[in-house]
């Protein structure tokens, strides 16, 4: 067995104790810091409203109050939901979050394209990126369209998450 001098013992003891202090503090601190990575997210269905009045071929913004799924409970966040109805009956429910830097994309009448004012990203009517820096098409909100027999209308519901990560 190796024999330690008094000096070596003291140095070793100091080092080990200091290291232990560091480890003891770090465990909860790092766990706390990383907790958003492991927090469980709950998604709910939010009713946006009837979409039968939305004109065909014109992207139309509707609004959805999305409950916050992080931190302490707060007021829901209102987000724009672009409903695009095509003549063939298909419907797209595009988010207005630019895939480049997540700015507020809007439908530009003059350009006939979705325009992101931050860095000049351009998307066509189906949300496909056609110009500027955006790396991928506009994502859709996770959604479903149900038929309400009582009122005779198609109602759009969305979840507070996108169908692909951006």
């Amino acid at each position, binding site marked *: 067995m190796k024999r330690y001098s008094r000096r070596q013992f003291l140095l070793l003891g100091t080092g080990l104790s200091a290291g232990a202090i560091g480890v003891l503090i770090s465990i909860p601190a790092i766990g706390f*810091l*990383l907790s958003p*990575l492991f927090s469980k997210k709950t998604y709910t269905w939010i009713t946006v409203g009837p979409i039968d009045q939305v004109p065909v071929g014109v992207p139309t913004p509707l609004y959805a109050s999305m409950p916050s*799924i992080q*931190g302490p409970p707060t007021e829901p966040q209102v987000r724009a939901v672009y409903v695009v109805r095509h003549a063939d009956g298909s419907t797209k429910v595009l988010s207005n979050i630019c895939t480049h830097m*997540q700015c507020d994309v809007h439908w530009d009448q003059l350009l006939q394209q979705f325009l992101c004012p*931050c860095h000049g990203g351009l998307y066509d009517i189906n949300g496909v990126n056609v110009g*500027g820096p955006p790396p991928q098409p506009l994502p859709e909100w996770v959604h479903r369209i149900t038929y309400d027999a009582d009122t005779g209308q198609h109602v759009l519901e969305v979840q507070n998450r996108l169908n692909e*990560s951006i």
Partner: protein
Amino acid sequence: MKASERNRTRVGRPVQRRLKATYSWFDERTGATELLHKGLYEAVPSRGSWAYTLGSATLVLILLQVFTGIFLLLDFTPSVESDWNSLDYLRTSDPFGNWVRGLHLWGAYTLILVIGLHMMRTFLSASYKRPRELNWISGAVLFFLVLGLAITGAMLPWDQAGYWTTVVVTNIVHYFPLIGDGLRQLWRGGDFVGPLTLTRTFAIHVWVLPFLLLTFIGAHIYLLRRHGEFGAWINYDTVSDNPDREIGERVRHAEPPYPTRRIERRYAAPRKTDDFFPNQLFKDTVVSLGLVLIIFVMGLLSGAPLDAPADSATLSYVPTPEWFFLPLDQFLVLTPHNPLIAVGVFLIVGGGALAMLLLPFLDRSRDRRPTRRPEVLVPVMLVVFIVIFMAVLGVNRLYSLSP
């Protein structure tokens, strides 16, 4: 001797004596006089001393930021629900509220400008060469910390400008290869910007970065005092026919902290020095006063803006960065889509930042004149031109986009 005069001397002398005694009691226990001497008496190069006031001006402006920041904390509440209201209250109901916010804002603008000038001056005079490499590196770290403080500060008012700045800035990190998504989630506290994003950014702005800032300021000033102010090449000219002997004389009679050892003999001691106190200190104070006056007036006249409350559903807002981030914003416009976004943001900008940090190890030439160092001067000038042009182009782009 008149009665009144006699009275005064009788009263005055013992008071003076008392004060002196009190001070010597204090001095004996604290060493205040010695500390003051160490702090104030130092030789500085005499030529170009107005240019050397920029460093102390930076320090004064940082202290002003700390000071006004503490005052803002008295009223400000960092939560998504009351953030905007607290600033609105400050603006509408507190007669000095908007002024103090204006001081903090204009102080930040001035600070960035002055720190830029300070770095430019240091770069042109090549003060970062041996043995002052770490002065430059600590200064560059300070520059990045100030930029970090500026951007996190711009995120805190939960108005449209602050909210969309937060969205864009927290999103940039996600282009970092491999761990980008995780970093964005950690900063935001979730997938999207929300209540935790604000509190986290607040903590970074108020605790993390200022703590680092003050630490590095300490290191920076310690290093400055250790090696002394370099000045510029104009302080090291030789005038006589025998330069060797002249430099020898100069080094032998140099005042502390000169001659700087472990340096080329020619640059070890300036030709002529002045005392820091009171010559340089006077100039430092005058320049700082001028800057604080500008901030004082601008804070009063223009205050700090507050947009409409944050609205994540807006379809018309044009997010506009603060002016000092306009070149980087324009760079994002010019960088075409993936994978070049990561290349552009992290390889080019990050590489540039790294080159700036490690400048003393990249510029190995011995001469200190800018015209004798084209290998660093020309690339830096190219970058400076491009940065200025990008700012101009950014203004133009945002103007022609806004409705």
